[in-house]
């Protein structure tokens, strides 16, 4: 990923920052020009909690350039009601199932950028047991 593009994406990548509509209250990720629900342009920054459940998942055996297989990917349904696609981390495929609670973590996304820097962003992992208990 080229550096200016990475720079543009740091808010959503690092903090799962999307938007909330000031008029209808709908939330969305990723950020865009208008509200997907009511087309209002009155949008404010909204930081998602990062908690959700697995909606679907897959295990990649053949990686695209810049990634090393095998790794897990998922569509996560966030507790705010919208979905996001991301990698799963800190879990084996045998232990993943649809409906499983997960939480966002910040991890290295790409092995090495074409210019040597590292690209960080959100991934999801199973909710840690101690947090689940609290």
């Amino acid at each position, binding site marked *: 990923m080229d550096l200016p593009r990475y720079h543009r994406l740091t808010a959503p990548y690092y903090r799962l920052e999307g938007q909330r509509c000031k008029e209808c209250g709908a939330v969305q990720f990723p950020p865009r020009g208008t509200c*997907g629900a009511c087309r209002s342009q009155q949008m404010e920054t909204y930081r998602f909690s990062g908690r959700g459940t697995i*909606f679907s998942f897959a295990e990649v055996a053949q990686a*695209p*350039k810049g990634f090393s297989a095998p790794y897990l990917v998922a569509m996560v349904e966030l507790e705010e009601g919208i979905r996001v696609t991301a990698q799963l981390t800190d879990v084996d495929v045998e232990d993943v199932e649809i409906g499983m609670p997960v939480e966002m973590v910040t991890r290295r996304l790409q092995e090495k950028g074409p210019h040597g820097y590292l690209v960080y962003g959100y991934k999801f992992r199973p909710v840690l047991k101690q947090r689940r208990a609290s």
Partner: protein
Amino acid sequence: MRDVFIIGTGQTPVGEHWDLGLRELGASAIRAALDDAGVETVDALFVGNMLGGCVNGQENLGALLADAADLLPAEAWKVEAACASGGAVVRAAALSVAAGIHDVAVAVAVEKMTDAVSEQVTAGLATASDGDYEASHGLSFVALSALLMRRYMHETGASREDFAPFAVTAHRNAAANANAMFREPISAEDFARSPLVAAPIGVLDAAPISDGAAAVVICSREALQPHHRPVRISGVAAATDTIGLAGRADLLTLGAAQRSAEKAFAASGFAPKDMDFFEAHDAFTIITALSLEACGFAPRGEALKRAAHGCFSPGGCVPLSTFGGLKARGHPVGASGAYQIVEAAMQLRGEAGANQVPNARVALTQSVGGHGSIAVTHVLEA
């Protein structure tokens, strides 16, 4: 808008063409289609292609192929709609003729994938998805299909093996197609045993990386000649959906496929029940199932049950992918939509030989790009 007709078809065999590049493949299909139509030249050339820039390092395919096929100085440019480029380019040519701008146009779709190594092609295919929020996170094109398939299995209770009929039928249909890449039959057991590419997707769920080009010559009613055996484009429509899969309200409804099919049916005056066969975008077995449901050939979640009853096999209610489909004829990605239309036209002209659907009069083709973010649907009539 004027009525438009297909009056010539051409195609190269699909496969690994080590001796042929974009230029040779494209020009070969164009010349074959012009010869079939019995025309010397055309008013315009439209080129469908997805990966020319990122895999072949060649853009400006309009001029490249107008030059290579001796069509200079015809208007010529490229149409790109990811994996639906082949359907979109035929629509672009048809629009130009319907609008009265051109009388005779040729649409060619070409893809040259085997010059690059697998990871480069995989990265190229991923450009059909959301670059910022899917591809950059390692969501390969196959991985996104796998998310669809896993969810479909979860909601319908289907097993991986239940998807086998689509691949088995495709390989059986390809056996007699001299232009097909895979002409060997496979069994449901072969399907079940195939290695996983992105679980739950296995090798035999997926269409292969291929080279190939297909072309059609399109003209107005006024330009028809007595020697032509025209196939009418009775209805055609395109529609879009969210670029990212996560944005879909119902992940298992391909909204663009559904909308484009509804509009194409409405324009043609036909309904799904009138279709004598269906050339589906079977890039992955899950996409076949979702496309069938989007076009009204099965209710939501029911496509596999109908497949199990033989509904989509030769002689069934809607024969599918009659020359082998993307799965077995091969999937030169931006060209496949044009192969579907060439094959449908051959069926409707009674030129399909051993693959002939008896008394075929009306057919549907659907070209799907980017996991349903774009779809182009054609209704063709003998």
